[in-house]
Every structure is written in structure tokens, then in C-alpha cells.
């Protein structure tokens, strides 16, 4: 499978090196050929690679590739080869993060179950504010400016753990709640929601001594728990809402425990969170028996943290 494309590349190398009209013509023909191969088999790794190899020579329009792959993803919106190809072309073009983010918003609003698009958002958000030329907000407080600066340096270093701004997280919580209120048993939004919760926790972990961050996190967790409880009132049978509730209770137990008695929460509240989290995981063992082993593990983690 690879060998046939290897022979074509061997023949094309001198033509591309020569450049000019002939090279452009040859590249266009090659794109037509890979398109025919991909129409027969959209999962052909070797055909996708060949197309990337041709495109990398910059002899043809990159914007046309974006249009093509959007058509493909309209027909098959989870095709991971298509998404990978889009990222490849976007990188070559130096596409603004904002434009990519808008594309994922369109795909998600068209179909909340598009996990591939949620995934891509998780890659884009940490980059969002590290782009050159993004103007600082007029009311930029010193702490927000410091936060942005910290993010820029960590994403330049290629860290995957760059903090996502609080205000961005608020927008994401809103978007993902639309997804799980519309399709409560679709995994896509819920897995993304768990990542968002981790992003909120990361702010506190980055500043464990900060009472402001701790209080902010407690507030976010409280809001999300209220939202999930509303959903459970509407859809009492939603297993995913219950999983998220159990996870939220476990996080609240950690945050509450860190507050100690000083923030007006006695140890009684903390113990109650712990019992609630353990009970929520235990319920799931019966409701979702395939994953009982995981729930037992989560329950024992909750119990251990409370000691």
C-alpha cells in the first residue's frame, strides 16, 4: 500500500524541485489522484499522508484544502483523519486560533455529539490568549494580566497544562450545559465537562494558599452541582448526570476539607460531603454495573481522603 505512493513520490521529487508551471500542474494532478483514492477509502493512512506530502510543497491553494476538508467533515463529522488533516493545513497556514475555535463551535452547535470537535476545543482554549496581537481588555486587572502572562509563557514552552482563563471557562460551562440538557446520555459533552472541572481545579492548585481561588472554585462547583441537580429533576434516570454529581461531590469534599474551620465551614460539612460522595458512587455500582469496579475505586478514594 505504501510502496505504490513511494514510487510516485520518487518520480515527483525532481519535478517539484524544478518548480514552475510544471510542478504546479503535477501537484494539482496528484491532489486529484489522492482525492479519488480517499473517495474509495477514507481511512487510507497512506493516501492521507501522500496528500500532506504534496500540500507541504506549497504549490497549491491551502484555502482550497480547508474548503475540501470542511465538505468531508460535513458528511462524516467524526472522521479523525479529516480532523487531523484540517489541523495540519491550519498549522501550515498559520490559521488564527479564533477561527479554528469558531469552526468547532459551528460543528458542536450542529451536533452536540461531536466529540472530535470538543476534543479540538480542549487543544485550542489554552492557546487562545497566547496569540500575538490579542489586545488586553480595557479593565485588565493586575491579576488577570499576570495570569495571561503566565499562560503565554507556559504555552510557548509547549506545556499542555496551560491554565484556561476563568472567563473562558464560564463560556465553556454554558456551552456544554446546552449539550447535556439536550442529550443527557451522550458522553461527549460530559467528558468535556469533567475536563472543564479539572481546569477550574487547576487554578486553585496553581495557588493553593489563595483563599480567593479556593472560594471561586467552591462557587463554580456549587453552581455546577445545582445545574446537574436541575437536570436530575427533569431526567431522574440519567446515569451520566449521576456520575457527574458523584465526581462533583468528591471535588467539593477536597475543597471543603482545605477550608478547614476558618472559612465558616465546620468539619461537620466536610464529613457530610464525604458521605454524600461515597453514597453517590455506591449508587452507581447498581445503576451502571459494567463499571462497578471503577465506582468502587472512586468510592474508596473518597473514603480515604476523608480520614
Amino acid at each position: 500500500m505504501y510502496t505504490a505512493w513511494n514510487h510516485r513520490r520518487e518520480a515527483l521529487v525532481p519535478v517539484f524541485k524544478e518548480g514552475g508551471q510544471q510542478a504546479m500542474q503535477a501537484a494539482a494532478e496528484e491532489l486529484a489522484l489522492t482525492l479519488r483514492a480517499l473517495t474509495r477509502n477514507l481511512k487510507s493512512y497512506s493516501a492521507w499522508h501522500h496528500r500532506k506530502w504534496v500540500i507541504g510543497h506549497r504549490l497549491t491553494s491551502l484555502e482550497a484544502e480547508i474548503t475540501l476538508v470542511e465538505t468531508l467533515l460535513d458528511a462524516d463529522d467524526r472522521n479523525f483523519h479529516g480532523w487531523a488533516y484540517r489541523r495540519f493545513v491550519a498549522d501550515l497556514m498559520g490559521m488564527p486560533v479564533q477561527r479554528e475555535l469558531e469552526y468547532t463551535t459551528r460543528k458542536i452547535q450542529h451536533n452536540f455529539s461531536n466529540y472530535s470537535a470538543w476534543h479540538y476545543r480542549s487543544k485550542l482554549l489554552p492557546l487562545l490568549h497566547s496569540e500575538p496581537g490579542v489586545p488586553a481588555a480595557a479593565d485588565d486587572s493586575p491579576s488577570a494580566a499576570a495570569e495571561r502572562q503566565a499562560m503565554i509563557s507556559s504555552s510557548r514552552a509547549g506545556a499542555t497544562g496551560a491554565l484556561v482563563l476563568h472567563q473562558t471557562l464560564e463560556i465553556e460551562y454554558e456551552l456544554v450545559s446546552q449539550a447535556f440538557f439536550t442529550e443527557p446520555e451522550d458522553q461527549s459533552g460530559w467528558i468535556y465537562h469533567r475536563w472543564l472541572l479539572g481546569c477550574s481545579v487547576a487554578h486553585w492548585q496553581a495557588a493553593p494558599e489563595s483563599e480567593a481561588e479556593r472560594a471561586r472554585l467552591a462557587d463554580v462547583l456549587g453552581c455546577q452541582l445545582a445545574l446537574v441537580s436541575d437536570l436530575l429533576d427533569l431526567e431522574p434516570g440519567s446515569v451520566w448526570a449521576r456520575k457527574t454529581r458523584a465526581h462533583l461531590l468528591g471535588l467539593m469534599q477536597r475543597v471543603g476539607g482545605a477550608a478547614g474551620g476558618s472559612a465558616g465551614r465546620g468539619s461537620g460539612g466536610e464529613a457530610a460531603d464525604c458521605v454524600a460522595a461515597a453514597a453517590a458512587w455506591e449508587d452507581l455500582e447498581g445503576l451502571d454495573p459494567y463499571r462497578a469496579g471503577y465506582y468502587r475505586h472512586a468510592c474508596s478514594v473518597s473514603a480515604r481522603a476523608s480520614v
Partner: protein
Amino acid sequence: MSGVYWGATALHILGQPERLDKAQLIAWVMSCQKPSGGFAGSEKHDAHLLYTLSALQILALYDSLDLVDASQVAAYVAGLQRGDGSFAGDEWGEIDTRFSYCALYSLALLRRLDAANVPAAVDFLRQCRNFDGGFGAQPGGESHAGQVFTCVAALSIAGALDEVVDADLLGWWISERQTPSGGLNGRPEKLQDVCYSWWALSALSTLGRLAWIDAPALTAFILGCQDLELGGISDRPDDAVDVFHTFFGLAGLSLLGHPGLAPIDPVFALPVTTVTRLNLAAQRLSCA
């Protein structure tokens, strides 16, 4: 080449290796080696890392690794590593975490892991880690059970599982691959398929979290994909059988401890007896 590896390993799991002629098999494998040291998928094709690993796995299975010039093959494999730690599949530069697994595993079999820059290889795999704890084919690529298997196993060979993998998060994501059918899918909201019985399950086993899915339900799903007349296993019930799904179905059943099957190693995808004979080392996690 990979088809031969699947078939030969399946027969070993079934305890019937004598059904293939060893001498003939080994001679054919060696006829696919190219002057570069790499192996091709068949005689007339070009060398590629995918087939180089399959060839070495077959030679390992038949205790014939001494037939290759280890330094030469190791130089071919290590020569495909890029500055960012990734590995290309061949000289044409396709990058994929599958090739990281092929490379590190091949070098481990050849006792030449030191020929590659292992810390850089680990760094590259870390870059392919995602928000859900899984791994993609390249940095930015969506998590997929097949890539999860190759990345977890590659990190296990590199001894860096504990540094890179969030085992609770990834274990949870894999446990959510089990659908109401009992079978496993490869990504959220996709159809179950027997091949994920190997890819998702082996990673769970390496992470010490095999108990996070329902073994009887998965066993029943795999057995339900067996063609009771032809004997093979298909991707889903009532589909046509093939050697690929037959191997992955048997390998999954073996990991689940199904009676009558020889145990398989979740990292090296060879019988445990072969891995023990070769004294291959890999890191495994346990669930605290």
C-alpha cells in the same frame, strides 16, 4: 507480514503452533528484509517500521531472532527518529505514535534501546496526550483506543508510564468504551468492534485496572462474533470473519483469562511464555 504475525500468534494462543511450518515461515520473513535492515510487508515492497516490528515478533515467537544482524536493524529503526523524539514510519516521513511503539519495541527485542533517544521519544508521547487522558496519533490528534494501546505500551517499554499517564483518568475513559452490547468501542459514541477488545483492554491491563470493565459481558460479546461453521471471529456479530479480528478476539479472551487459551502479554502482544523466555522488561502500574 502483519497478517502472518496475527495468524501465528493466534495459533500459539490456541496451543497449536505446529499448524504452521516454522522453517518455511522464517525463510519467507527473512526474504522480506531489505538492504537497509528494515522489513517490508512482502518480498516486492518497501521496508516500513510496521512490518519490521511484525517480522521481529514472528522471529521472537519462533526463537529465531539470532538470524538478524541486530546492529543493522537497530540502526535502521533508530535512523527513523526525528529531532522531536517522534518516529517516521519510513523515509517518507509519516509521523504516528504507532511508529513510536514499533520502534521502541523493535529496539527492546534487539537489546538496543540505547540506540534511540528514549527520553525524547517519551517527550513526544507526552505531547500526544489529551484532555481525556488518552492519546492521539500526533500532537493534537483525538484519543483513539488503538493509539492508547500503542502509547501506553511504548511508555511501558520506556519505563515512563508513571511519569506520563494519569491512570485513573485514562482508566475511566477506557471503562466508558464498554457499550450496552458488552463489546468495546474505540472512541466515544462509536460502534463496538472486537478489535478494541485487544487495544482498549490491553491498556487497561497494563494500567492495573482490568477490573474496571465487565469481563463476562465482553467475553460473551467476543464469543458472539465467532463464526461457528468457519471458526474465525468477526468485528461484530454476523459479519464476515478475518484473521485480524480473530487474533484480536482471541487476544482479548486470553487477557480475560478465558479457559483453554495461553496467556498473552498486554504490552508485547506475544504469549507470556515468549516474553518470559526473552526476558523482556516493561513497566506495569497497579491500582492503589
